[in-house]
Every structure is written in C-alpha cells, then in structure tokens.
C-alpha cells in the first residue's frame, strides 16, 4: 500500500485497522543468496539497493536486536557532505544526492530537511582550514559558503559574540546539509527492502561464520544455521567482534559516543551548528527538542552509555556558544558504540575470504553516509569489486600507507 495523504485519509475511515505491516516478520529460510548481518541503517540500505539497483532476490538481513537498534536509532541525525579529501568527498556527495531523493524513492517520509550545516571558526588557522575544505567542496560542485562573523551573527544573533573566551570569527556553511528523522531512515529502507522481497529477520543473532575452502557458506545463528553464497557484514560498533568470527583483526577500536536531547521548545535554532572551540554541535528536531552531542568519552567501550565528565564537557561548550542555553533543560542522554578507525575513515571492501564483504569503521560519521554506504556496499557485493566511489575505503590502506585522515590525528582512534 503506497503511503500518501489519500491512503491516510482512507484508512482513517476504517479506524486505521487496515494498514498492512510495514514489513513482514518472516521465518528464516535455510539458505539465501546474500545475507547481510546487521539490520541497522547501512545493512537495510544495502539490502534495499541490492534488490532495487541490482535486481537481486533471495536476500536476508539478520538483526540481533530490533530493527534499527544500532546507531541508526541513536545518532544526532545530521547529514552533510563537507569533506575535504579526494577519497571522501565524492562518496559523501553521492550520499547527499541520494538523501535528496530518498523519500520519493522509498515512499516514506524520513523528513530530510536541508536547513544548513554551519561550522564555526574561532582562529585564523581554522578559517584557513575551512577555506581549504570549502574549496575542496566547491571544486567538485558541492555547495559551500565561507561566512564572516557578521554573516554568522545575522543567522544566529543569540550566540556569544561579546563575552566569549574564543570569539566567533566566521564559519563554513553547507546549505544543503541538514537533518533527517533517523528512525524513519531505518523504517523506510526496511519497508522498501521488504516490499522487494528481502527477508528482514529481527532478534536473530549471528554467532559464527562458516567458511569452507576459503569461501563463506553460511552463518550460525540463535535460530540455527542459515546458508548463503555471499555475506555482508554491516555491524558498525561491533565490527571487531564480528570479524573475530573469521579470525580477522581490524584497524579500529569501539568507543562510546553520548548524545543528548533537550525538552521540547518552540523553534529556537534553525539549522545545524557546530562549535569550533569545543566539542558541541546542535540542531533542533521537528518535535522541538535540541539534539546535541560532542566528543566520544575516550575509553574503549561497548556499553552504550557514558559518564558525567563528557556530559559536562559538551554542555560547557554548548553554553559557551549559546549563553541562553543555560536555562534550557537536557532531557535525556544516551550512548552509541562507534567503530573508531585508525584514520577516521570507513571501510567498504572485500575481504581475503571469498564471498565475505566488510562495511565498518564509520567512526561517528555513519548516519550521513547511510544511503551511499548501502549503495556502494550493494555494488561491491553484487559485482565482487568496489565501486569507484568507495575505492579509497580499502582495508589494506593502512598497510600501504594510503590513509584517509581528514583530521590528521594518525593511528589514535579516540582522537578522530
């Protein structure tokens, strides 16, 4: 049943009793051509594009928890394509283009809202770095604007310009950046994949990966052995643990990133803004809550919850940027587990095992990448080779010295 205002009104007459489920609750088959491990944003998007772009059938997505229970359900919903390095920029811009047509594509309103992403700068060196970044965007046709202090003030007059420890000097604005209702992305992809025949199996935990003669043949799950010809791993946060099932060690650590939402407020801040003199970024959801976050706690963690020092750190930065936040109340905090990679960039690649593909290492930038990640991972699985958009996201780049390090922090995952 297509979603639109007419179907909504029609169903209201029957008390909404006749909606079809957005996805089935299938019993796992004995064998699939392709299994994707991880029913989060990237896994569901991968299945969706495998079916839609490559016409493949007989696909399953296995999710150990509930659909979208990973980082797709616990991020700060920001989309942007303000990257700098040649290996990153085209990929994220492709993701942005997919976002821009996503809802019509999968017939689900995920509230893609391009209200702008503004990064503030506070020093000459930061402004020079933004100029470099902005030009890297513009040179490839991505929108970017360098704002001076007065242009920032015009957008956000209630930020601290007069009493700040680190005065705002300007900012880099990407107007096409914005936010998306994160759960809606998972649900839209799930519904789209399901309607194309993909089996989405929730509460199905993969316990082992079966490899015979260097070739993947299936997975052991809490619901029994499920065979497959190809296996895609999209378990960010837990990638190292998944990879251990085939004896692989990955160049990453798992870290907890906290995020927060305030009580609901009438429109307060229109776009996404990141502070440049501390760890704080904020946007306001359509429901009215200020959604904000900062840095990872800094210690290895799989706990999906953090501690107070980072809460204080983030909120101090928030009030430094916007003094009037002082009397706003933070409602809830939560944590997600990040695959913090050794250069801050992801991996979408084949592995040394035939039929086994890896999608990992998203650090805390995975949400905005969801469409392109799914699209490229689907291509990589379907064609057994990376697409040129994910050609730089190779697993062996650390061995060869071809890191993609936007922040220049090196092999220290908690600094990316």
């Amino acid at each position, binding site marked *: 049943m297509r979603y639109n205002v007419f179907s909504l009104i029609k169903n209201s007459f029957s008390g909404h009793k006749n909606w079809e489920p957005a996805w089935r609750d299938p019993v796992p088959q004995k064998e699939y051509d392709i299994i994707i491990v991880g029913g989060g944003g990237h896994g569901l998007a991968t299945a969706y594009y495998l079916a839609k772009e490559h016409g493949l059938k007989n696909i399953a997505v296995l999710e150990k928890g509930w659909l979208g229970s990973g980082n797709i359900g616990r991020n700060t919903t920001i989309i942007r394509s303000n990257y700098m390095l040649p290996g990153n920029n085209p990929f994220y811009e492709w993701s942005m283009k997919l976002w821009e047509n996503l809802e019509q594509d999968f017939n689900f309103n995920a509230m893609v809202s391009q209200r702008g992403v503004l990064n503030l700068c506070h020093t000459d060196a930061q402004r020079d770095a933004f100029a470099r970044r902005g030009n890297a965007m513009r040179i490839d046709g991505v929108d970017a604007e360098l704002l001076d202090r007065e242009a920032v003030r015009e957008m956000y007059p209630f930020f601290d310009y007069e009493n700040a420890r680190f005065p705002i000097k300007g900012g880099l604005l990407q107007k096409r950046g914005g936010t998306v209702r994160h759960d809606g992305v998972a649900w839209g992809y799930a519904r789209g994949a399901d309607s194309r025949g993909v089996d989405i199996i929730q509460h199905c935990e993969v316990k082992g990966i079966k490899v015979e003669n260097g070739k993947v043949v299936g997975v052991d799950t809490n619901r029994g052995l499920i065979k497959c010809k190809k296996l895609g791993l999209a378990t960010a946060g*837990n990638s*190292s643990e998944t990879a251990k099932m085939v004896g692989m*060690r*990955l160049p990453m650590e798992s870290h907890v990133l906290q995020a927060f939402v305030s009580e609901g407020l009438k429109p307060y801040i229109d776009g996404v803004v990141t502070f440049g003199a501390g760890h704080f970024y904020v946007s306001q959801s359509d429901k009215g809550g200020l959604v904000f976050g900062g840095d990872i706690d800094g*210690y290895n963690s799989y706990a999906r919850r953090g*501690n107070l*020092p980072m809460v204080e750190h983030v909120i101090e930065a928030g009030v430094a940027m916007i003094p009037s936040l002082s009397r706003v109340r933070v409602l809830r905090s939560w944590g997600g587990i990040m695959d913090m990679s*050794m250069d801050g960039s992801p991996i979408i690649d084949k592995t040394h095992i035939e039929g086994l593909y890896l999608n990992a290492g998203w650090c805390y930038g995975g949400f905005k990448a969801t469409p392109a990640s799914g699209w490229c991972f689907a291509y990589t699985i379907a064609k057994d080779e990376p697409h040129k958009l994910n050609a730089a996201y190779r697993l062996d780049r*650390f061995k060869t010295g071809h890191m993609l390090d936007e922040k220049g922090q090196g092999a220290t995952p908690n600094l990316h």
Partner: protein
Amino acid sequence: MLIPCPHCGTRPVEEFTFLGDAAPTRPTTNDPSTMEAWYEYVYLRNNPRGAIEEYAHHSGGCRSWLVVSRNTETHEVFGAVPARDFTRAKGAKA
C-alpha cells in the same frame, strides 16, 4: 568511573587520558622483514568486548602512564599498574 592510581589512590576518570589496548608490543628491530609486525603493532587491535588491559595516562594527576584492567562492556575497573612495570613484566615473559 574511578581509576585506582598506584601513586595517587582512587581518582575520577576525568583526570585520565586513554590510549587504548596495551596488548600490542612494539617490535624491537627495524629489520625490513618485520614490517608486518610493525603494521600490526601500529594498526590492528583486538578491541575486546569484555576484559581489556589498556593504557591510561594520569594526565591530570601524577602523569604516570598506567595499564588499567577494565571491562569494556560493564566499565568495571579491576585495577591499575604502572605501565613501566607492565612493560618490564611483558619483556620478562617474552
């Protein structure tokens, strides 16, 4: 989270800076044949869900590097030893 610093006593986590798994050991030779070992030392991590021994710098305290035993899933802290002792013990074992 509280870290039992062997020098300062139990101190809050905000005084510490973490550097990840202490298991990888820096190779002791620059022989070109050891490139793989160097790559693994610099880049590959076990990244365990559960018990870990990790480097933590008491940067806001005595400035000792420690090796803290902790559980990454529960955040339970079991103890901490000076990194110097940890390294020497590892060297003695090797």
